[in-house]
C-alpha cells in the first residue's frame, strides 16, 4: 500500500504551503519519500540534519 506513490492530497497540501519556495517543497517531498522507505530511527536523525545543511548551503551560498 505505502509504495513509492505519495498520496496526492499530501502533495497538494505541501504545494499549497510552499507556494513561493520550490526548494523547500522539494526538500519536504524528498523527506517524505525517505519516510515511505521507512528508514530506521537512528538513520533519520543524521539524514534530516544532513538534508537541512545541504538545503541551507544551497539557499545561502
Amino acid at each position, binding site marked *: *500500500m*505505502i*509504495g*513509492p*506513490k*505519495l*498520496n*496526492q*492530497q*499530501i502533495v497538494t*497540501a*505541501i504545494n499549497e*504551503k*510552499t507556494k513561493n519556495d520550490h526548494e*523547500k517543497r522539494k*526538500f*519536504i517531498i524528498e*523527506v*517524505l519519500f525517505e*519516510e*515511505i522507505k*521507512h528508514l530506521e*530511527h537512528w538513520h*533519520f*536523525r543524521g539524514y*534530516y*540534519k544532513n538534508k*537541512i*545543511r545541504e*538545503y*541551507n548551503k544551497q*539557499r*545561502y551560498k
Partner: protein
Amino acid sequence: MRIKKIKFKNYRQYKDVEIILKKKENKNDLHVFISVMGTGKSNLLNAINWCLFKEEPFLSRKDRKSPQLNLSIVKDAVDDEEYRMRVEIFAETLTNQISFLRDQYFQIHKINNDQGYNSHETREQFITTLIDDNGNSKLYTDEEANEKVKLFVPYGIKDYFFFDGERLDKYFKEATGQHIKNAIYQISQVELLDRSRIHMQKTLEGLQKDAGKKSPEIEKTRKELEGENNNIKTHSNELENCKKQIAIAKKNINKLEDNLRGMPDTEKLQKQKDSLKDDFIKQEKLYTDKIKAKNEFLFSNGINIFLWPTTKNALETFNKLEDDGQIPPTHDKDLLQKIITKEKCICERDIKCGSIEEKAILSLINSIKLSPKTSQELTKMKEELVSNKNTVELYTRKNSSITKEIKNLKEVLDGIDGKIKDIDRQLAGFDMIKIRYWREEIRKFEELRDENHKSLGIFETLLSNAKNKFKELTEILNKEILRESKLENLRNDMLLAQDIIKILEESNEEIMNSMRQQIESETEKRFLQLHWKKNTYKEVKIKDDYTISTIHNLGFDCMDTFSGGEREVLALAFSTALHNISGSDSMIVIDRPFAMVSGITTEYIANILSEISSERQVILLLTPNDYSKKVGAILEKKASNIFEMKLSKNERELKLEEYKYVNYT
C-alpha cells in the same frame, strides 16, 4: 497493490494449490471463488492472514480443532518425521514486486499404531522479497520481513482489507472512533507526515542542544523548553491513555451487552420478585386475620343461628297472638272477675246479676285466654326474639361482607403468586450468577468510562497549557539565538526545521479534516445507495472524535437500532469509501459479503463491489446461494476469474476449477 499469485503447500485443505489472479483484458480486477460451506473458502482468507500476520482470525469451530497441517499429510505421515507447511503470496505494485513466504514445520508422532497422532511445531521462517523496477531483488527475514508487511497491509487496519461478511455486523460496535481515526490515518499515509514531524522535531532538538553548548543563556531556555516538551509528551500520553480506556470500556460494555441480549433483566426481575414476596406476606396476614375474624364472628353468632328456626316459629306464634289481640293484654281479667264477684263497677255503680252489663263483662272475661301476667311475660319474650331476629338478619349481611373480603384477599394473593411464578418462569434456565456477574462488569466499565471522560477534560487543559508555554519558550529561544552572532548557521538550520515542522503539522490537520469530511460524504452516498430503505435515513456523520452516527429522517441518531444487515451495509459503505478517498490501491478480500443481507441489497452490494474492482483488486468468496442468478449476472460481466472450489473424494484436499458459467447475461 494487487495479489497476482498465492501458492499453498500443505496448508489445511490447500495441499498443493496455486491460485493465479490474472486481470483479463476488458475485465475488472475482480476474482470470485464459489464453494459450498465447509470446503475451505474462509481458509483462503485465513491463509492470507496467516502468511502475513501469523494469525487465522476466521477459523470455523471445526477448523479450530483440526491440525493446521493438511490431513492427508498427517494421515500418511511417518512417525517423528518433519513436514513443512507453506503459504506464499506474490503481489505487485505499479513499479515493484513483493512476495511473502511463511513456512511452518511440524513433527508428527503417531499414537498406538495409527490410533491417533500428536503434532508439534518445530521451526518456522518468514521471508519478504522486494523486487524493484530494475529487477533487483532484496531479501528480508524475521523482524525486517514483518516490517515490510506494513507496506502491503498494516496490521492495525487489516480488517478494512480482509473482511468476513458474517462478522461485519460487529464492525461499528467494535470499531471505536479511535480505530476509525487510526484507519484513516494509516490508509491515507498521513502518518508519514507525523513520522516526519517527529523526526524533524528530534533533529531540531539536536540543533538546539548544539546551540545550547555555545551559550549558557540559550542552554537555560532550552532546558526549560525540553521540560515543557516532556510535559506535552506526558499529558499527550495521559490523554491517549484516557481515550484508550474509554475505548476499552465501550468495547467491553458492547460485548457484555451482546452476551446479555435476549436475556431477562434478572436484577430487575429479582427486585420485582422480592417486592411481590413482601406484598404477599402482608396480604397473607390480612387474609388470615380476616379468616380468624370470620371464625370468631361465626362462633359468636352460632347460638342465634342454631335457634333461628325455633325463634322464627315463636315469632310467628307471637304474631298470631297479637293478631288475636291476646298480647299485649287489653283488659285486666282479675279486675273484671272482682267486679262480677263484688257486683260493683270500679265507678261504684252496681252490676246486677243477670244484667246486660254483667253479661257483657262475663263475655269479655270468657274472651280473655291469657292471664295478664302471662301476657306481660310473653311480650317481654317477644322483644328478645325480635332482637335475635335482627342479629340473624345482620349476621347474613356481615357474613356476606366478610366472605366477600376474604374472597377478594384470596384473589389478590393468587394474583401475586401468579406474578411470582411468572418471574420464576422467566428466570428459569438462566445462569443467574453469570448474568449478575456480567451486569456488575457492565457497571464497572461504565464507571471506568465515566471516570476517564472526566480525566479527559483535565488532561486536555493541561496539554493545551503546556503547548502554549512551549510556544512562548520557543519564541524566547529563537530571539536568544537571533541575538547570538556565533550561531548564524545553526540559526538557519533551526528556523528551517521549525518551518518544516509547522508545515507538516498544518498539512496533517488539514488532510485529516478534509479526509474525514470526504469519507463522511462518500460513506453517506454509498450507504444511501446500498440501503434497501430509501426514505428512512438522512445522513451519515463522522464526528470530530471519529465515531460514526447515522441520522434518521426525523433527526435522531439511530445507529443503536441498526439490524445486523444494516450494520453490514454501513461497514461496507465506510470501508469502500475509506479506500476510495484515502488513495489506497490495495486489494479487498471479502468472505461472504452478502451473508447478512437479502433481496435487492445483495444486488446493490454486488454492483458496488463490481464498480470498486475497476479501481482496485477485489476478491470475493461466495457460496452457491450467494452467487444467485442476479448476482451472477452482475459479477460475470466484470470478473476476470470465477473459480469453483471443490473437495477431493477423501475430503482432505481442495481442488480449484474454473467455474462452469451459466450464461445469466
